[in-house]
């Protein structure tokens, strides 16, 4: 846990981290507040949206859009280490290259825990306010969505970790990360049959927080094939380990 302590020394006084976290929290609140007054999937949302247990899925689906923000934060933290040459100094001072990757992985676990707890609080607050007869079964009903969200957040941040270590320059790494997650992989999805592309990393991660009411949509249009969240979680954990391994190998092959 020495590695985590070292990371906390770096992060806690770092304003950029707090600014990005504040942006995330504010945007989440803003969306939850305003979207209750709009319609999604042809349904009037209103109080309906906040009703537990379905609200857990709404929450994690909404929050999944901000995984890119957490990814950017990880990229900033990693490329800083290259810019300040502190990765280099820390290896000189005694850390191994595996320690460098592991330390940043601890940060992604920490950030994912933080945002999952934030969603838990939001869910309990808005949910209990709008659910007429909240029993334990209702509250806990679809709470596993939070666990899938946690895996998803770690997954996106691990992808960002690889981009940060591979590219080293913050601007370029952020662009490449967003381009891959939002443009390149979706374009590949168009070319490949669903039965194959459902195993691709970004699609696997997206399957962890399916859109609420997806089944309804599937009845109206051609259904898209997605892994179920439990299956996606297994593949995601595999991808996370692969991403960390690749990051480690890149550090090992290169001069610092």
């Amino acid at each position, binding site marked *: 846990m*020495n590695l985590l302590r070292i990371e906390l*020394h770096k992060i806690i006084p770092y304003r950029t981290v707090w600014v990005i976290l504040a942006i995330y929290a504010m945007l989440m609140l803003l969306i939850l507040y305003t979207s209750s007054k709009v319609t999604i999937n042809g349904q009037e949302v209103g109080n309906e949206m906040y009703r537990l247990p379905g609200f857990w899925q709404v929450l994690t689906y909404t929050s999944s859009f901000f995984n890119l923000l957490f990814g950017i934060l990880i990229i900033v933290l990693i490329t800083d280490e290259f810019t*300040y040459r502190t990765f280099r100094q820390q290896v*000189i*001072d*005694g850390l191994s290259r595996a320690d460098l990757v592991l330390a940043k992985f601890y940060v992604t676990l920490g950030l994912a825990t933080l945002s999952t707890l934030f969603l838990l609080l939001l869910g309990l607050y808005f949910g209990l306010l709008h659910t007429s007869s909240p029993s334990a079964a209702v509250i806990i009903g679809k709470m596993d969505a939070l666990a899938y969200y946690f895996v998803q957040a770690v997954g996106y941040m691990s992808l960002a970790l690889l981009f940060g270590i591979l590219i080293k320059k913050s601007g370029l790494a952020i662009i490449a990360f967003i381009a891959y997650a939002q443009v390149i992989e979706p374009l590949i999805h168009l070319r490949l049959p669903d039965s194959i592309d459902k195993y691709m990393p970004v699609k696997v991660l997206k399957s962890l927080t399916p859109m609420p009411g997806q089944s309804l949509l599937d009845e109206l249009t051609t259904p898209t094939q997605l892994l179920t969240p439990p299956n996606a979680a297994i593949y995601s954990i595999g991808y996370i380990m692969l991403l960390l391994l690749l990051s480690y190998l890149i550090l090992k092959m290169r001069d610092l």
Partner: protein
Amino acid sequence: MTEVLNIDNLSKHYGSILAVDRLSLQVAPGSIYGILGPNGSGKTTTLGMVLDVVRPSSGTYTWFGQHTGKEIKRRIGALLETPNFYPYLTARKNLQIVADIKGANSKSILQMLNMVGLEQRKHTTFKGFSLGMKQRLAVAAAMLNNPEVLVLDEPTNGLDPEGIAEVRELILKIAAEGKTIILASHLLDEVEKVCTHVAVLQRGQLRADGRVDNILSARDQFVISADDIPGLVTVLQAIPFVESFQPERDTVHVTLQEGYDGRELNRAMFEAGITLSQLTLHRKSLEAQFLEIVKNRTP
């Protein structure tokens, strides 16, 4: 006694460029070992390799007779090229991170800040430091775990004369505690003033190594002249104790072998029937010495 650092046939290629070429050298405990060479001669690359941040293309090195690792690194304090810290953190916080990595006692942070004269500035962020202060903070960080060896790469680079004097004084103070110091520099003068041993690098190759007083012993040069310069040159060629000479327009620069001085030269000339119109002792400039080492010596 085990060498502190043993470098064996270490090479590094960057594409087609050979930055370090089959370098071998040994650093004995307690020495202040200078690695001297012009910019781009492979000093930093060499230190980068032995500090585990640059992958050697071939060759090996050992510290205290062992391969490097966490335990070995704790016995080494090093600063490579630039002071590397988080600009937004204070001096104390930056050292705290280094202390956590090295497993050093937190109490030593204040001691080290004190040693480098930064105790008043411990709450200043690193980005607010002058270059000299940054360099001193890096020395403090390198000293945190009370290491047995201190590796310093161009520690006075970019400093003003006052800063240079401060850092040199600090190095000598640390050396007086019996620590081994490895110092890379392109300044001959610095190596001569501070080091006990020196290795001279040029284009990645070792040109000379040994005790500073042997390698850099400024063998003095004589400037002589006579009416008949061509005759003078012929005579010089015949004198056995003349190591080298270089005719200029109406003078000749002569270097004698060790143990000979102006009297012998004058006598030999007189015996050959040449009367010198000038015989002056000329201290060789440091640059001239360096060029001579690089030109004459091969590994």
